[in-house]
């Protein structure tokens, strides 16, 4: 029998139906012999799932076996418990399993814990009173049991962090013991001390420490220890390292740990193994939330991964890009995503990436035009995989504009949308959702700007309805659009003559099987028959954003009801009080529901989603059901003409919020890195970013060379371009924040170093005076105009020659800045001089002297740039000067110092 059952298991595994033998497996677990029983349990766990009918036959045996004095029997039963016990049968075995927590054999204790964990997953309430047991098991003598206890605790902590904060200390001490190899040798795995337990603990600590400074502080040392002890040559070591990075990125940020995490990530990314690259990209995505600047170090590695043949790696990289999208790089990223979306045919992932594209486009779209184009692309390629809500959002967006009170921009947006849609309609085979959007927009705004005649648009709409004749929804949208266009025409006082194909289409629809289509067609006919005034009140032009007041209580019917009651009609009985006629009323209710939702949705003239919600209050329907509603109900609907600006202002506020976020981050980061060394390092990176951005800048080429040679020798220009476009954005914004650091830096240094020269002090004072406009300037969202801001540099190139004279003169004057020259320009140089001087003061603290020079250079550049006055020539001169100063130091020429310092 045993052999047969094993064969049956095999048969089942191969995918054939073996249900005829299930009952024999159930019988087998009743057997006395452990051998047979064990096989029976194995077969049962493989055959049945928790809601199978035979489970009820097993519960009794399990109960008996849990009491067995042979621990192996208990183990076998516990294995089955984990798989087979469902929510209803938990109470039957729970008390016994709790008893088993104190079993002398650790294997039994462990399995009992896991069983309780399973119960918790199935129904959290059933084991909620056992939390103290889990805590007790954490101190179990056997590491295996302790490790197993971490699983349920992890789940418990995920759901409720706060009530387990007291365990932080114990978790940390356990982790410490593990890391110090206090556990038995048997738990070592590839020379790592109990890595699986370490990983589990790190996961728990990450949960406990997230946004909790106090708890996090307890963890810093031990996590740092693990970072040091992990050997990155073995796979398991890397697994622990990765978990450490996750933990560091989740807990309250600690600078030292972040640095080691960044180190580990760069090791991952540089490795040849695809697995490690994958983990590196993933870890980067996690860390980027805390310290965005680390992405820049790895930009080339990221781009390599993006172009990797490995699909998994590519997807992960897209996930990373999704996380680091900003308004500056959104175009590049979304374009890439759409390209990739076209190249795959896995529907699941296609849906996901499409929704991401939409989300990014909605959040960061640089222009309306671009947004519409992007949405078109997404719809065209991802088609019906796109959520219908996205289509509704798009319609709403076109209807409401982008929240700015700029009517011309909105109408421009609309006409561009109309134009692009008319163009797209020429293509064969469009997805249904997209067609719905197109129809709606054409109906609403097709004739709004007078560019296209009504007959042209209606012709197109008829074509759509004919071409997609098996898609009812699209046809319905098309008919509604037709009606709107005709209504607008009538309202404008023009004579309407229906196209012949439109006539035939209407005739077809009037006889359609779909009641919805029929209704719409009849309504169209009715509207065309009305005079201009009536039509305008039914379908006012461009009113899709206006709210419609729905009188849910149907108070306008009160008179009528009163009248009927006086005439002897039955008063309305609420549905709950009716018993006998419940069935009928339900049926009729539904009927009404359907009809009314169609009819109302139609005239509602709003986004379908909203109206449907608003229009089916059951109470009102119930009342309509008893009282015959007169036809007049529909014209009597009052349109509330006051537009409620809440939605648009909402959009504006989200935009505002987005920007604020960036600002907050900037300041937040500053608080995280109070040490000056950090600000130095960030500014170094910034220099790097700048050189990356203005590639054509010859004056800076030397700086760039030094950097590039330091970084990587062979980089294809194409990749570099991509990198610049992807990371240029971040680096730009970085630049802003970094400038904040820089401009504040000199003053802080000054104060620290207590410069003996009074002039220096003055200089520092003046720098700080100069700061406010600087910061203000950067507060403005000037990010978008990247290209123009670079152009002046190019222009300057030509001007450089003649202005050197001037600048050198200015240089001299600044050399004499000890005498406090009132010249502003002198002031700038002076600042640099000060910066240089001070930099050389702290040279010992910094390892790379030329770089600090450059920092000084860029500082002035930034300052000069930001304070470009109204006088163009003046500013040009300044730039030239800045250029000179900015370049010369990078040649590592000490003469400059002599020049400036006299």
């Amino acid at each position, binding site marked *: 029998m045993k052999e047969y059952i*094993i064969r049956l*298991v095999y048969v089942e*595994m191969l*995918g054939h*139906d073996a249900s005829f033998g299930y009952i024999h497996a159930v019988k087998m677990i009743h057997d006395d*012999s*452990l*051998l047979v029983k*064990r*096989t029976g349990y*194995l077969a049962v766990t*493989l055959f049945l*799932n*928790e809601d199978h009918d035979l489970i009820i036959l097993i519960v009794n045996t399990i109960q008996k076996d849990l009491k067995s004095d*042979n621990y*192996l029997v208990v*183990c076998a039963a516990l*294995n089955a418990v*984990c*798989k087979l016990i469902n929510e209803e049968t938990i109470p039957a075995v729970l008390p016994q399993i709790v008893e088993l927590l104190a079993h002398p054999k650790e*294997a039994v204790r*462990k*399995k009992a814990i*896991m069983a309780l*964990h*399973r119960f918790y*997953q199935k129904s959290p309430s059933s084991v909620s009173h056992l939390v103290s047991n889990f805590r007790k098991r954490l101190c179990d003598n056997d*590491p*295996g049991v302790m*490790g*197993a206890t971490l*699983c349920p605790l992890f789940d418990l902590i995920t759901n409720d962090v706060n009530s387990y904060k007291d365990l932080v200390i114990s978790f940390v001490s356990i982790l410490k013991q593990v890391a110090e190899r206090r556990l*038995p040798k*048997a*738990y070592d*795995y590839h020379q790592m001390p*109990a*890595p*699986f337990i370490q*990983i589990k603990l790190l*996961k728990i600590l990450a949960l406990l420490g997230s946004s909790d400074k106090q708890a996090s502080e307890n963890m810093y040392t031990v996590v740092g220890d693990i970072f040091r002890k992990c050997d990155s040559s073995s*796979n*398991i070591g890397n*697994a622990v390292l*990765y*978990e450490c990075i*996750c933990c560091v990125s989740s807990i309250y940020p600690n600078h030292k740990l972040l640095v080691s995490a960044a180190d580990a990530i760069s090791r991952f990314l540089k490795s040849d*193994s*695809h*697995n490690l*690259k*994958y*983990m590196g990209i993933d870890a980067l995505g996690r860390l980027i939330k805390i310290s965005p600047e680390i992405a820049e170090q790895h930009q080339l590695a990221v781009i390599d991964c993006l172009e990797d*043949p*490995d699909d*998994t*790696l590519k*997807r992960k990289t897209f996930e990373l890009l999704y996380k680091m999208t900003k308004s500056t790089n959104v175009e590049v990223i979304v374009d890439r995503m759409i390209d990739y979306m076209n190249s795959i045919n896995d529907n*699941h992932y296609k849906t*996901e990436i499409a929704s991401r594209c939409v989300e990014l486009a909605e959040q960061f779209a640089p222009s309306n035009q671009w947004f519409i184009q992007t949405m078109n692309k997404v719809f065209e390629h991802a088609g019906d995989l796109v959520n219908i809500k996205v289509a509704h959002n798009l319609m709403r967006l076109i209807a409401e504009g982008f929240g700015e009170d700029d009517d011309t921009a909105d109408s421009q947006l609309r006409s561009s949308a109309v134009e692009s849609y008319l163009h797209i309609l020429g293509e064969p085979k469009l997805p249904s959702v997209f067609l719905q959007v197109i129809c709606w927009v054409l109906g609403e705004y097709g004739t709004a700007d007078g560019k296209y005649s009504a007959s042209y648009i209606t012709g197109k709409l008829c074509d759509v309805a004919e071409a997609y004749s098996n898609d009812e929804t699209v046809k319905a949208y098309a008919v509604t659009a037709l009606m709107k266009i005709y209504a607008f025409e009538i309202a404008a006082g023009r004579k309407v003559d229906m196209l012949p194909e439109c006539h035939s289409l209407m005739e077809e629809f009037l006889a359609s099987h779909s009641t919805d289509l029929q209704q719409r067609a009849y309504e169209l006919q009715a509207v065309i028959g009305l005079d201009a005034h009536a039509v305008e009140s039914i379908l006012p032009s461009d009113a899709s954003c206006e709210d419609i007041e729905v009188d849910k209580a149907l108070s306008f019917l009160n008179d009528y009801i009163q009248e009927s009651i006086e005439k002897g009609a039955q008063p309305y009985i609420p549905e709950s009080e009716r018993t006998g006629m419940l069935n009928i009323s339900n049926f009729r209710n539904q009927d009404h529901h359907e009809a009314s939702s169609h009819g109302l949705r139609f005239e509602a003239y709003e986004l379908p989603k909203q109206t449907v919600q608003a229009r089916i209050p059951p109470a009102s329907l119930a009342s309509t059901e008893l009282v015959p509603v007169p036809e007049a109900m529909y014209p009597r609907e009052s349109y509330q003409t006051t537009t409620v600006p809440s939605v648009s202002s909402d959009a504006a506020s989200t935009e505002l919020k987005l920007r604020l976020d960036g600002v907050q981050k900037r300041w937040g980061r500053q608080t995280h890195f109070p040490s000056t060394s950090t600000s130095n390092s960030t500014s170094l990176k910034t220099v790097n970013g700048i050189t990356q951005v203005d590639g054509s800048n010859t004056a800076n080429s030397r700086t760039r060379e030094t950097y590039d040679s330091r970084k990587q020798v062979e980089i294809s220009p194409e990749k570099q371009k991509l990198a610049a476009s992807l990371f240029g954005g971040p680096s730009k914004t970085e630049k802003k924040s970094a400038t904040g650091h820089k401009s504040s830096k000199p003053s802080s240094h000054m104060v620290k170093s207590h410069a003996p020269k009074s002039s220096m002090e003055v200089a520092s004072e003046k720098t700080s005076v100069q700061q406010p406009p600087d910061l203000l300037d950067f507060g403005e969202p000037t990010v978008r105009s990247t290209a123009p801001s670079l152009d002046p540099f190019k222009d300057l190139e030509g001007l450089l020659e003649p202005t050197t004279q001037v600048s050198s003169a200015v240089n001299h004057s600044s050399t004499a800045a000890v005498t406090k020259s009132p010249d502003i320009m002198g002031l700038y140089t002076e600042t640099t001089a000060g910066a240089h001087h001070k930099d050389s003061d702290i040279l010992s603290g910094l390892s790379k002297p030329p770089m600090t020079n450059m920092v000084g250079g860029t500082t002035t550049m930034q300052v000069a740039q930001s304070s470009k006055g109204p006088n163009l020539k003046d500013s040009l001169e300044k730039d030239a000067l800045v250029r000179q100063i900015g370049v010369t130091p990078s040649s590592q020429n000490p003469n400059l110092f002599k020049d400036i310092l006299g």
Partner: protein
Amino acid sequence: MIHFVLLISRQGKVRLTKWYSAYSQKERTKVIRELSGLILTRGPKLCNFVEWRGLRVVYKRYASLYFCMCIDEDDNELEILEIIHHYVEVLDRYFGSVCELDLIYNFHKAYFILDELLIAGELQEPSKRTVARLVAAQDSLVETAKEQTSSITNIIAQAAK
């Protein structure tokens, strides 16, 4: 948590399946078909993770067998890779240089070992020695049981004479 464990041969034949989340028989065959199509076609140098229906599948090839485990998105893939390796090491120790044939003929034993290693989709025992000891204990009990039954039948047979 681990949703299922699959062992597939290079030809796409299933060698072992263990489901920790509920999948109907129909879904199971579909999953196996989809995954074997996805995994067996991947090149040798690519990474050992595959995204699949919002989940991750971690796989590793040992000789002609692919060991696959399906996990949640936020799990540690490298750790799962090591759990696979851990399982293989335990199998290796148990069978003594394990090969595909061992698993075909003794697949129930492979299941027993897996049950000692993973329970309800979580790793329950990180120590190889403990697993080996437990499995051995069960086996020895089976052995004694066998001896007993044979001796009893012998006694009965003798008595019958």
